[in-house]
């Protein structure tokens, strides 16, 4: 009781503990994303109170089902599926959106399409064979639905039944509901058959099953009305069959034209579909009574390879069909056909070098919604872009902060060679801003309002030029995504400053491929400019299976490539091929701009490949140790490497194995946690009695997380702190395997200086009184007891004393599971570090260092000295889940994969950027903003007091002088 009260009191002490509501949106920003669309968005509109609300329903690769407002592109609602619950398909009918998800696509959920409210959730029977396809059709008027899953048909509604196919080797893929019967249609290449089943939609009784022979090359078909249509590639003919309950109709063919493909445009009810001819022409086809195909409209042959079709219904229920194609001249043209009306032709001025090629097309009246290969969703009206979303930001692979350079005016002053006249001219020029500055200063002073843009950058301020602000809060976030795009984001507002798409180099024109970013580094800019450059190292996986390592060096302010130099940023971002083959690992040599790239033969390739960097590597070669994860036949292992030069083998330095981390049998390396490098302000921790615990500051430490391969023994997950030069284990712990869902090692760790924090799920309490739940463990490594020192930070790894480590550790019950963990970082490392975690309930929390002090006392109260000097508090099993520690306010920051932090110019403040599905950036001050005056500081009062005192002196001084003089006379 007392303890928790004490802790609660302590937590109350700092004044500005939680984020103030007035700061929300000023110091932070949040981007709600949905992920890259997997399928064309489905336009859904509902008329409520005479206003039409249009939403675009789209499933994404981030396992999200989302509804976007068709007018402005904002997220109306989204449902984030669990990682183990992948979306299999979704279907829209009226106000209901039905999604099937999970293994075997057995989880069925129905949402209200305008609000996203979950109307029901149901688990269906799983197919006994491998899942091939799912389909849902809705019964008109009753609201019941039929779900086809491979060989099962389930009716969901008031009457429920399940029909199972007699032959499970013939999976069905489409469901057709006509007034007469419910048909399941499937095509199998293995048996060269089209198999059909007719089921009574009311009772679920089987009416008939049949199979019809097809040429084995037929792999897909479309359904239009009650007709199944397919293309036979061998004869370039169209085959179709009418569905009737008896399933006796015979196959007919259409051979007058040479058909290439049939395309379903979601107009099954209108009996419309599109047939593409080998000539490039396309026909809108309709099945007429009596099984005759009628061509409604002919799109003329296009001159490009890619044509996309989309159909839709307008508010009156009239269908329309659009065709989009990219001509060889990279122009994108669109034709919209509405039966009985003129064809509308338009072209989209889409810059394919900025957004990639069109991947999906949807049509909403005359407005086109496209998704691109780089994950953008854009709405176009004629040739005007209405809105756009960059959804590839939900798939950031690597990201880094880049400090902005000083403003041009200050940075480019050459003080030495400046003549007097030039200096005068410059000073006069500088002084012309003075009146404005003075006025702003006075205003700031009197009103106490924060300075407008120069000092504190507001999130809404998008006009300010890209230059460093006084406190360094304005930086550029450079992010590379899994969809081959590179973004520059403004940390002040979250605005996208520039977008680039990675070029494919030699694989670009004919071969094709993808660029997968691996590493990102910030290096000093080349030439005279003060700025920094960003180096992105990526794998280019060409479609012909060749993998190369490509390096892109860009200017973070404009996104322009530095090497090779480019004039403008209109084209694709082309890099330089640095290694012909995959990259094994890349390292940056500390305190230099040299990056060493290790190829698959373990050769060291320096970047930049200059004599200076070769000389640097030659100088440091004997001292460098490179621990990294190598893949062996039995799984990945941690291997340490040294560098040597063997002229017989190669003229480059080679990394050779020096040590391997030996793990207990059954343990397998899961991941490496790199130490967070930053300045170390203090070499030890001063205790209450003025003695010092010297920190074990071995700069070669890193963390290895392992998992258990043998499920039966369940030895647990390992956390190891390893010395990178010789592979000795400095600290190790084994924690239980998490059995939430499926058993897995769900351990997250971060290491800064001598401080390791890890988080895991305690499955079974081993001792009495222990319970299941999340634990957070804090470990501090010291050189020994109080006043024992070994000078670990400059000691050789091979010194006898290097293994003298004393670990202090404590564990706490934590209320949440986490998905990412890191520490804050500040410019000089003086400010205490907070732990920043992204929790599974979509929040970002900061845990203060003081709460994670492993010296918190368990058995006695802290002495006054310890309270005063060390700010020691008694141990409490529970880490309080204080909502004021949530730095993400009420934002939902979903599926955060990584959090990165960057120092600002203010020592007290650190920038925090969390990315995953959503992006979130804020500033934190772990020890409060001790280096700037509080906003509520009353400057006026201070000045008035000083003025009053000065006035008092002026009045009192002559009086005192006169009195003194009089006193002298009477002495």
């Amino acid at each position, binding site marked *: 009781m007392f303890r928790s009260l004490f802790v609660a009191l302590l937590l109350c002490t700092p004044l500005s503990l939680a984020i103030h509501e007035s700061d929300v949106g000023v110091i932070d920003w949040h981007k709600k994303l949905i992920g890259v669309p997997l399928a064309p968005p489905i336009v859904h509109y509902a008329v409520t109170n005479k206003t039409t609300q249009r939403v675009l329903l789209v499933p994404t690769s981030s396992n999200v089902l989302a509804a976007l407002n068709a007018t402005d592109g904002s997220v109306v609602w989204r449902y984030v599926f669990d990682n183990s619950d992948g979306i299999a398909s979704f279907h829209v009918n009226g106000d209901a959106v039905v999604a099937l998800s999970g293994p075997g696509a057995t989880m069925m959920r129905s949402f209200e399409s305008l609000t996203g409210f979950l109307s029901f959730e149901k688990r269906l029977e799983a197919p006994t064979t491998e899942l091939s396809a799912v389909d849902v059709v809705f019964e008109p008027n009753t609201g019941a639905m039929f779900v086809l899953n491979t060989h099962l048909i389930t009716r969901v509604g008031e009457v429920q039944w399940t029909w199972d196919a007699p032959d499970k080797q013939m999976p069905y893929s489409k469901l057709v509901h006509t007034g007469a019967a419910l048909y399941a249609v499937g095509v199998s290449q293995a048996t060269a058959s089209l198999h059909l089943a007719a089921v009574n939609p009311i009772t679920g009784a089987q009416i008939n099953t049949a199979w019809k022979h097809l040429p084995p090359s037929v792999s897909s078909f479309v359904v239009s009305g009650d007709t199944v249509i397919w293309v036979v590639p061998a004869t370039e003919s169209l085959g179709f069959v009418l569905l009737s309950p008896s399933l006796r109709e015979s196959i007919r063919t259409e051979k007058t034209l040479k058909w290439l493909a049939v395309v379903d445009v979601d107009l099954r009810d209108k009996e419309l579909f599109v047939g593409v001819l080998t000539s490039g022409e396309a026909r809108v086809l309709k099945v007429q009574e009596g099984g005759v195909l009628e061509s409604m409209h002919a799109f003329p042959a296009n001159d490009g390879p890619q044509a996309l079709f989309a159909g839709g219904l307008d508010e009156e229920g009239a269908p329309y069909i659009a065709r989009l194609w990219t001509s060889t001249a990279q122009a994108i043209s669109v034709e919209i056909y509405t039966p009985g009306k003129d064809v509308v032709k338009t072209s989209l001025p889409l810059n394919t070098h900025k957004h990639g090629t069109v991947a999906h097309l949807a049509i909403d009246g005359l407005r086109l919604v496209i998704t691109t290969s780089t994950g953008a969703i854009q709405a176009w009206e004629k040739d005007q872009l209405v809105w756009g979303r960059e959804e590839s930001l939900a798939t950031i692979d690597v990201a880094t902060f880049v400090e902005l350079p000083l403003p041009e005016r200050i940075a480019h002053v050459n003080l030495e060679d400046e003549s007097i006249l030039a200096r005068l001219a410059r000073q006069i020029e500088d002084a012309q801003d003075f009146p404005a500055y003075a006025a702003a200063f006075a205003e700031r002073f009197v009103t106490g309002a924060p300075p407008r843009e120069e000092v504190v950058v507001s999130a809404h301020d998008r006009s300010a030029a890209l230059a460093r602000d006084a406190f360094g809060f304005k930086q550029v976030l450079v992010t590379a995504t899994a969809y081959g795009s590179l973004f520059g984001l403004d940390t002040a507002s979250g605005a996208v400053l520039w977008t680039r798409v990675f070029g494919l180099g030699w694989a670009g024109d004919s071969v094709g491929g993808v660029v997968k970013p691996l590493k990102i580094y910030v290096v000093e800019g080349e030439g005279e400019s003060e700025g920094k450059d960003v180096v992105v190292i990526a794998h280019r996986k060409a479609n012909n299976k060749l993998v190369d390592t490509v390096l892109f060096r860009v200017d973070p302010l404009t996104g322009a490539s530095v090497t090779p130099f480019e004039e403008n940023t209109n084209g694709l971002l082309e890099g330089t091929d640095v290694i012909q083959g995959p990259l094994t690992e890349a*390292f*940056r*040599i*500390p305190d230099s701009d040299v990056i*060493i790239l290790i190829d698959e033969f373990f050769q060291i390739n320096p970047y930049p490949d200059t004599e200076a960097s070769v000389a640097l590597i030659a100088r*440091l070669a004997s*001292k*460098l*140790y*490179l*621990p990294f994860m190598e893949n062996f036949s039995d799984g990945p292992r941690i291997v340490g490497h040294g560098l040597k030069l063997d002229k017989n083998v190669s003229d480059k330095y080679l990394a050779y194995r020096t040590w391997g981390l030996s793990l207990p049998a059954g343990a397998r390396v899961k991941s*490496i946690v*790199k*130490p967070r*490098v930053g300045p170390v302000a*203090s*070499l*030890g921790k*001063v*205790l209450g*009695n*003025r*003695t*010092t615990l010297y920190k074990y*500051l*071995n*700069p*070669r430490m*890193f963390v290895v997380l392992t998992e258990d391969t043998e499920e039966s023994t369940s030895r647990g997950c390992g956390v190891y702190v390893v*010395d*990178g*030069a010789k592979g000795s284990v400095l600290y190790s712990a084994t924690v239980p395997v998490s059995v939430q869902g499926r058993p897995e090692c769900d351990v997250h760790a971060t290491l800064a200086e001598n401080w390791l924090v890890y988080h895991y799920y305690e499955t079974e309490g081993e001792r009495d009184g222990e319970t299941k739940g999340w634990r957070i463990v804090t470990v501090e490594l010291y050189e020994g007891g109080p*006043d024992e020192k070994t*000078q670990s*930070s*400059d*000691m*050789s*790894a*091979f010194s006898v004393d290097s293994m003298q480590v004393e670990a202090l550790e404590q564990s706490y019950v934590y209320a949440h599971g986490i998905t990412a963990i890191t520490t804050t970082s500040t410019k000089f490392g003086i400010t205490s570090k907070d732990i920043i975690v992204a929790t599974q309930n979509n929040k970002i929390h900061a845990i203060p260092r003081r709460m994670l002090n492993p010296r918190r006392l368990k058995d006695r109260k802290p002495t*006054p*000295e310890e309270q*005063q*000097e060390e700010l020691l508090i008694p141990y409490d099993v529970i880490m309080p889940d204080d909502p004021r520690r949530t730095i993400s306010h009420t934002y939902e920051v979903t599926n955060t994969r990584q959090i990165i932090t960057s120092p600002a110019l203010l020592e007290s403040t650190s920038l925090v950027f969390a990315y995953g599905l959503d992006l979130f950036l804020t500033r934190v001050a772990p020890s409060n903003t001790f280096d700037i005056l509080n906003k509520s500081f009353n400057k006026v009062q201070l000045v008035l007091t000083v003025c009053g005192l000065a006035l008092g002196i002026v009045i009192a001084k002559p009086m005192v002088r006169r009195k003194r003089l009089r006193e002298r006379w009477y002495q």
Partner: protein
Amino acid sequence: MSKSLEYATLEPASKWRNLSPPPGFSKSSSSTRVSSKTSTAPPPEAYNSIKETRAFDFATAPAKSLPMQAFMLYMSGGGVQIFSMGIVFMLLLSPFKNLAGMNDAFAQFAPSTAKNPKAFTTLLLQKLVYIACNALTLGVGLWKCRSMGLLPLGTGDWLAFETRGLAPEISLF
């Protein structure tokens, strides 16, 4: 401003002895009595011994005020505040001030035989006691400083001045 008795007037060799009495004071009436008493008056050595005891009293004065100061220290508390800091500064400074003015302060107690009343060697014993007592005051002041955590005694106070070089091996991550 402490008023001190001017014992020097007692001495026979005093320069004030030859001054004429102020107007209105008759010397004759008393002079006979004085002269009769001069024979019974103690010799100058006796004055010296009185002065010695007075000097001892003076020397031990700092020690006598210690309990009072200790009480004040106790009352002022352990925090670093303006009041406790004032007392601590007084305790720390006054011994040095006293010692600096020691020879002047003891000159008045110097025996008549002393060649140089301001020499360190006159009244050596008393001065040593005085030094010891002042050291005691200083000690109390330092003890207070220590209890307030102001004395750099532990390694923690010197930690900021420790430096470390670069590690001989570099591990890259």
